[in-house]
């Protein structure tokens, strides 16, 4: 038999000024199953709470309704009080007599009547509430960081420094990402390698970090705190423990003309290679696609010269399985490179290059040792044109969004050019200068005012070649759309920043959502920019959208804190207001018909399959099962299920129907 207690609060006069609190307490006190009913001036005060606790014990209450302010304000207070008195906290409900009644209505009988109704509804509800236990899940305190660019490096270091283990998985042979390719960085023009390399080394040496380069995530199972990940370590064809990184093999390899990815095709590398001198780890890998041995069955020069016999041609890929508790995705971005703009001739004219190629030209460690030389003939370009928004903000041929970083790096490029080629002329075609950031606009102004970079507001229509020069046909919209024609030696296109190839595949493997441009999607654009929709998986850096280094690093540290917060508990406790699929006795097992419509609408991928099998393992029936670790309790699945097989703790079908009936029917 239910024994309900009702506690009507005056809130000083906030409630009692318009609601007759005494009458409310008296009226509901007469209802069936109400064992105790009273009113009091301040329920949340210490004496108020004591009153409640005493009543629970004294009257052996099986449920209470605190009729006071908004549950959004004091539900935790009163649930805690209930728990202290030995009543399951989920058997305490609050009727909102203040925000939803006394403050919004005039003092009259109808208002008091409404207050009575509000209390009644919750009395009926709490009668059928069930005692719920918070959900506890254990936490594996090892984090996985996917992607070893600056964002991944920062996250890994921050997490590792909180004392937790980190596994860092990088797809390419070295960590460093795009930042390692940059020459100098805006807005300070400090050398990218100089600030990045120490971090890379720190990663390699950190006792809490295990680094897997040349590796990729194969699959992921489990949920927050309890993931199992499979990592494929691609065969490097060398035995790393024996390799000293002497580099002899790379100098002797006869394959020398493979376009160097790190140099953005502006240089070459051998088949056994270290992507760049400061690479971490600084040990080579064999590119099997280009190695003569793998292609033709002979060569093995590297094996012959290797002093430590570290080469292993028969090394297989290795798949390892690890348990982890949280994931940071930091797989970065890329820039558009294909010939998506035939009118600009990218890919056709050697001297029309992209931003990353320019970085390599400007980099002291690049193919020209930092001299700005045009690729076609190695001459110093005297007239250089930069084209901003090349493919960005262009729904017709490119992408609709603004790539965010190119205004800044274009200003940087023009500046670097002017610093290196004093007599040269730099022109920038732009639509808007987007340089919001600390010291950013000042930086752009410096390019214009101190380095005399010629900024022209207007887009370029076409670029064509004549007599070894590039004719750039643009317009100056600030001069009434006057056509501008520049005879340039070299053109740099600030091509759009796009999602990394493979991002979609990775998102699917990790069960996180991504947007229409294949960038990873945050859980909330403003308040959860670091979280994904999947609990325990976080985002850092340009994998979310094009970002510069300061933003990538900030977010990476943010993601690290989220992981650290998760790891600060040995168990996760969560409000048990989650969905569940009903179970009946065999042979039915559940009323669920296995349509999995619920699965298709769940925003958190919390619905799994559960098989019922005969003793010999034959599947009799497959039904839905809620993963409590993932379910956030939105109830979308409940409303959708046609066989009414799913229900939601705290907002069950029975509970909400009871509320409706109580509300509409007189007592």
């Amino acid at each position: 038999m239910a024994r309900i207690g009702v506690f009507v609060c005056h809130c000083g006069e906030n409630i009692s000024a318009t609601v007759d609190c005494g009458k409310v307490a008296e009226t509901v006190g007469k209802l069936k199953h109400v064992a105790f009913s009273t009113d009091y001036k301040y329920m949340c005060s210490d004496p108020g709470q004591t009153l409640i606790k005493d009543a629970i014990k004294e009257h052996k209450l099986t449920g209470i309704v605190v009729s006071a302010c908004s549950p959004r304000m004091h539900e935790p207070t009163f649930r805690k009080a209930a728990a202290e008195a030995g009543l399951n906290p989920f058997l305490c409900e609050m009727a909102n007599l203040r925000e939803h009644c006394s403050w919004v209505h005039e003092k009259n009988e109808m208002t008091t009547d409404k207050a009575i109704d509000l209390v009644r509804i919750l009395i009926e509800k709490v009668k059928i509430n069930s005692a719920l236990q918070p959900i506890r899940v254990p936490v594996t305190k090892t984090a996985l960081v996917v992607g070893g660019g600056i964002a991944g490096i920062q996250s890994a270091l921050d997490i590792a420094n909180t004392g937790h283990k980190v596994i860092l998985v990088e797809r390419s042979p070295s960590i460093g990402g795009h930042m390692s390719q940059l020459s100098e960085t805006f807005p300070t023009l400090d050398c990218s390698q100089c600030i990045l390399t120490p971090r890379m080394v720190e990663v390699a040496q950190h006792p809490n970090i295990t680094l897997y380069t040349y590796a990729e995530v194969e699959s992921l199972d489990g949920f927050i705190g309890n993931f199992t990940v499979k990592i494929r370590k691609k065969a490097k064809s060398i035995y790393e423990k024996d390799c000293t990184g002497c580099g002899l093999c790379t100098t002797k390899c006869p394959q020398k003309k493979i376009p160097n990815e790190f140099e953005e095709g502006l240089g070459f590398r051998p088949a056994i290679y270290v992507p760049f001198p400061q690479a971490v780890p600084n040990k080579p890998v064999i590119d099997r696609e280009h190695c003569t041995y793998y292609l033709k069955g002979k060569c093995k020069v590297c094996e012959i010269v290797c002093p430590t016999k570290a080469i292993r041609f028969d090394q297989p890929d290795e798949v390892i399985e690890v348990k982890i508790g949280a994931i940071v995705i930091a797989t970065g971005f890329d820039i558009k490179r294909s010939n998506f703009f035939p009118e600009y001739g990218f890919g056709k004219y050697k001297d029309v290059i992209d931003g990353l190629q320019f970085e390599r030209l400007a980099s002291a460690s690049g193919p020209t040792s930092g001299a700005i030389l045009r690729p076609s003939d190695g001459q110093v370009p005297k007239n250089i044109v930069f084209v901003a928004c090349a493919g960005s903000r262009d729904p017709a041929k490119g992408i609709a969004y603004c790539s965010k970083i190119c205004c800044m790096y274009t200003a940087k490029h023009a500046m670097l050019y002017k610093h290196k080629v004093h007599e040269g002329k730099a022109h920038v075609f732009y639509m808007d200068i987007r340089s919001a950031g600390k010291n950013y606009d000042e930086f752009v102004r410096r390019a214009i005012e101190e380095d005399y970079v010629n900024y022209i507001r207007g887009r370029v229509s076409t670029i064509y070649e004549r007599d070894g020069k590039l004719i750039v046909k643009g317009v100056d919209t600030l001069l009434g759309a006057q056509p501008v024609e520049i005879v340039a030696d070299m053109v740099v296109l600030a091509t759009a920043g796009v999602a990394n190839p493979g991002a979609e595949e990775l998102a699917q493997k990790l069960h996180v959502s991504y947007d229409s441009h294949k960038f990873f999607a945050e859980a909330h654009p403003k308040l959860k920019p670091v979280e994904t929709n999947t609990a325990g998986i976080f985002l850092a850096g340009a994998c979310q959208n094009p970002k510069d280094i300061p933003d990538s690093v900030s977010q990476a540290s943010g993601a690290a804190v989220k992981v650290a917060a998760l790891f600060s508990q040995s168990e996760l406790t969560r409000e048990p207001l989650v969905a569940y699929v009903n179970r009946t006795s065999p042979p039915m097992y559940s009323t669920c018909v296995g349509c999995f419509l619920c699965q298709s609408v769940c925003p958190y991928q919390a619905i799994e399959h559960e098989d019922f099998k005969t003793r010999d393992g034959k599947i009799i029936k497959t039904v839905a099962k809620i993963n409590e670790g993932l379910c956030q309790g939105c109830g979308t699945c409940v409303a959708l299920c046609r066989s009414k097989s799913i229900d939601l703790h705290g907002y069950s079908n029975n509970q909400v129907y009871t509320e409706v009936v109580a509300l509409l029917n007189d007592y």
Partner: protein
Amino acid sequence: MKIGVYPGCSLTGSARDYNESVFALAKAFDIELVQVPDWNCCGATAAHNLNRELSLSLPARILATAEKNGLDEILVPCAACYSRLIVTQHELKKNPELKNRINEIIGMDYRGTTKLINVIEWIDASIIPNLEGKITKPFDYKVACYYGCLMVRPNKVLNYDRAEDPQTMDIVMEKIGAHALYFPFKTECCGAGLSVSRTDTVSKLSGKIIEDAVHRGADTLIVACPMCHSNLDMRRPDINKYWKSDFKLPVMYVTQAIGLAIGLTPKEVGLQRHFVKVNIS
């Protein structure tokens, strides 16, 4: 083989040379070209500049006549006419209400079933595959292929080649032994519709095209549109005056070049009708 043809006004007038080369080529490849009976002018630039309904009605009459006479496919050698016809097809397909209105104007039942073929598509489908063994005099020249605006734009409607740096004509020329030059002006406008009313503008625009082709060492320009041809060939004195030079670069129709390559005489392909002498062959 039999196929419909819509010559349009130019081919029966100022572009007789083009007409002759198209028919000569058809004959050499056993293709019978059947004219759309009692065809009318497509209205050209003038109609759509001045009256939208007229600009759709004139082509619709042509197409409806072709439909009525069972011509499922028609070759339209003039790029300008081709453009008007295909744009009409597109607009009327997009907008059934407009289609009804136009049908009312022309008093015919236009359905939009005719397949329109431009000259390069025709060459690609019916000439190139049968070229083997026919080339007696490879067209061993450096050529600049000029497509103009109407063959590639609007790309979404024409759905032919690509709007920037198209290649179809270049490929055809390479097949008959020519060397197709890199030519960035291939889709720049020659001035087309302003030919008579703004000779200065046309001289300037067409002049840029000629100048660049000469600069790149072309032996001849190759075109597939009578409007382009008349601006680049007939207007040469104006161009030369405007550019204060003496460009002698000939301008040939793609059909003429193929004709010569398979051994037709200059006269058979109408070369003698050109204003700028063609000292090729």
